[in-house]
């Protein structure tokens, strides 16, 4: 297996996630796009772990999965709070901090 095939796939998934974060305005969909980007990074870690025959890649992939679970919990709580305060999760309308 060529190392680059995994890296190219991860790059494609990461760019899809970047597009989702930029172009979506539903808060839950933005969080899903962030999950796509985190998964792309995890593919890179595991691929380099196999390439270098080093267990650190898989260990850090596990850590990232745990951090992603924490991130989704807090992120969805924030989205719920925005919904409760403004009856909408349109992120374009959440512009209180815009000058």
């Amino acid at each position: 297996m060529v190392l680059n095939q995994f890296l190219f796939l991860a790059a494609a998934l990461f760019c899809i996630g970047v597009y989702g974060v930029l172009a979506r305005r539903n808060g839950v969909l933005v969080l899903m796009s962030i999950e796509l980007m985190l998964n792309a990074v995890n593919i890179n870690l595991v691929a380099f772990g196999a390439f270098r025959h080093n267990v650190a890649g898989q260990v850090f992939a596990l850590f990232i999965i745990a951090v992603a679970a924490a991130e989704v919990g807090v992120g969805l709580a924030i989205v719920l709070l925005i919904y409760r305060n403004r009856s909408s999760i349109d992120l374009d309308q959440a512009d209180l901090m815009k000058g």
Partner: protein
Amino acid sequence: MAFAALALAMVVAGIQVVTTQNVVRAALYLVIVLAGVAAIYILLAAEFVAIVQVLVYIGAIVVLFLFGIMLTRAPVGRDIGLDNDQRLVGVVVALGLLGLLTWVLADGFGRTKVPAGSILRTAAIGDSILGPYVIPFEVVSVLLLAALVGAVAIARRD
């Protein structure tokens, strides 16, 4: 061959996640991408990470997303207006980034191969987590607790 089929399915499902006009379908397409990532881990002989991926992502995170979709009362049917007016900018940025990454990776790694039979046993991962990486492991457990308490504190009605 297996990799090409997996990669194609994942990229198509990933594009659907960020372009479909139905929030629930986006979550279900996300399941396809996450299962594909688990299959990629199997291809790389990382079976423990693959099982954790299925348990945590497909089992827990997607369910959390579905809860979030239901609690924010998103329309289950077709919904116009999930995208903002930055789509063109998004496409340009994403394609530019993809081009840059592809060029850098092709230049840097070329046709370097993953050594065949490079199998890391699950026991080695356990030894590593409880050996050299025990401090990050404990920090992650404290982080999970903090995130749990924080999510309850933020989302609580009072």
